[in-house]
């Protein structure tokens, strides 16, 4: 485990030396501050201007869903960029034939970052959440968000061959986060077309306060992760 940890530290050093990736890791904090202080202010302003009791407040849950995903996605994106850089440098195959091994590498690049993303997401949600979810809801929200981060990181490393392509794929793959919007704005059963997206179930879980929806979200995520992981394994074989 020591070796895996050393390899993880190497990734952190790479992130620290890359201004873009370093800024990405700080992104969730800045975004959280914007949500926590900006949105309620905007809500008061809009309610006064439009003379309504509420305007944005019914969608605070949706904002929390997005924030839970964003915190993980940004951190996992940074890890995915490091993997792409290692692929560019052809270091990745070498790492597999060291004391680290393939399993150790995957843990250091996806396992540990996901774990950290989960913990950070919980902390950031606790601080910046607009709906103050209960502990179970918070855990499920954090876990689902982390899964989304892992899914996007895997999509980036599976479908791109260098950092430039990686950034383009990240932009494209974040579309799958938009599934969370459907339960809030679409009442027609057509919304279930987005059911293969875990974000859809996160949105539904938050809107209806349904733990089952969160559990379905996790199951859907696991399917995505397994499929993408198999593809990634084939790519690096």
């Amino acid at each position, binding site marked *: 485990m020591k070796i895996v940890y050393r390899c993880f530290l190497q990734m952190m050093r790479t992130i620290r030396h890359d201004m873009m990736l370093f800024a990405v890791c700080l992104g969730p904090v800045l975004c959280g501050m914007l949500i926590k202080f900006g949105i309620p202010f905007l809500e008061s302003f809009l309610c006064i201007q439009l003379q309504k009791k509420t305007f944005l407040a019914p969608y605070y849950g949706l904002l929390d869903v997005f924030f839970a995903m964003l915190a993980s996605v940004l951190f996992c994106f940074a890890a995915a960029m490091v993997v792409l850089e290692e692929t560019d440098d*052809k270091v990745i195959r*070498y790492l597999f034939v060291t004391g680290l091994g393939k399993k150790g590498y995957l843990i250091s690049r996806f396992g540990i970052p996901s774990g950290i993303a989960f913990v950070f997401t919980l902390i950031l949600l606790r601080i910046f959440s607009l709906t103050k979810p209960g502990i179970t809801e918070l855990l499920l929200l954090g876990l689902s968000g982390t899964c989304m981060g892992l899914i996007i990181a895997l999509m980036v490393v599976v479908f791109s061959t260098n950092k430039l392509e990686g950034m383009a794929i990240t932009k494209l793959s974040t579309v799958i986060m938009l599934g969370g919007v459907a339960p809030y704005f679409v009442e027609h059963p057509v919304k279930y077309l987005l059911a293969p997206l875990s974000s859809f179930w996160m949105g539904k879980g938050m809107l209806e306060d349904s733990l089952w929806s969160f559990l379905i979200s996790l199951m859907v995520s696991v399917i995505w992760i397994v499929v993408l992981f198999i593809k990634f394994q084939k790519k690096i074989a």
Partner: protein
Amino acid sequence: MIQVKNLSFGYTDKPFIRDMNFEVREGEIFGFLGPSGAGKSTLQKILIGMLPKYEGSVRVNGIECREHEKDFYENIGVDFEFSTMYEKLTARENLRFFSSLYQRKPRSIEELLEAVGLLSDADKKVSDFSKGMKSRLNFIKALLHDPVLLFLDEPTSGLDPTNNRMMKDLILEEKKKGKTILLTTHNMQDATELCDRVAFIVNGEILALDSPHNLIMAKGAANVTYTWQEDGEKTAVCPLNEIAGDEKLRQLIVENRLQSIHSSEPTLNDIFMDITGRTLV
């Protein structure tokens, strides 16, 4: 050290490596020779545990490759043909990081850098290195954890004659320390000079396996070519083992009229072409 029995492997349903059998003894330098696409790299990938879905048995250090654990790599050093370094890090930072990935006590980074003439460039970023410098750095990276078995893929590729010589001396030095070395190369001269035994691989099959000396001798005797002046320059060739019966040559020696004489032994390349019907280039 390595036992390969009835090895077959394919990337698709069609086998690419077919029913291969060979052994590599402890302390020897064993060469894989073959043209591009012959299966050398695939074979190396199987031996270092990167392709576990093979048929037959491949045992390295007594461990079946498809079942290897993480510590399998504590005893193996791999030098890929291409650079496998973090380009943004310096040579020293790279070596420090890679040596931290093993449980074994690492060899001195300074000594290794000095051995390949890179000590003065230790704090340069690898992206500023030439191909030859990267090649030398790659080689010492494989030695960091002092493994007992080395896999070297084209270690002399891209090196100038001086560094080529230095690299070959370093490989022979590692052999003297008792290491087993598997060398994959296109370079017949390097193979002749370094390898105790070589295997010719073509289309996923071993077509010949022996020491370079035995393979060359099996081809037959060397030829002697001599020239003299007689209405212009004349040349004749006779097999070395029939030289005593060459009347013309004897007469020229007696009359002191020989202009030049030299023997030409077949090279490993000639043997490769004879056996496989192909060249390596």
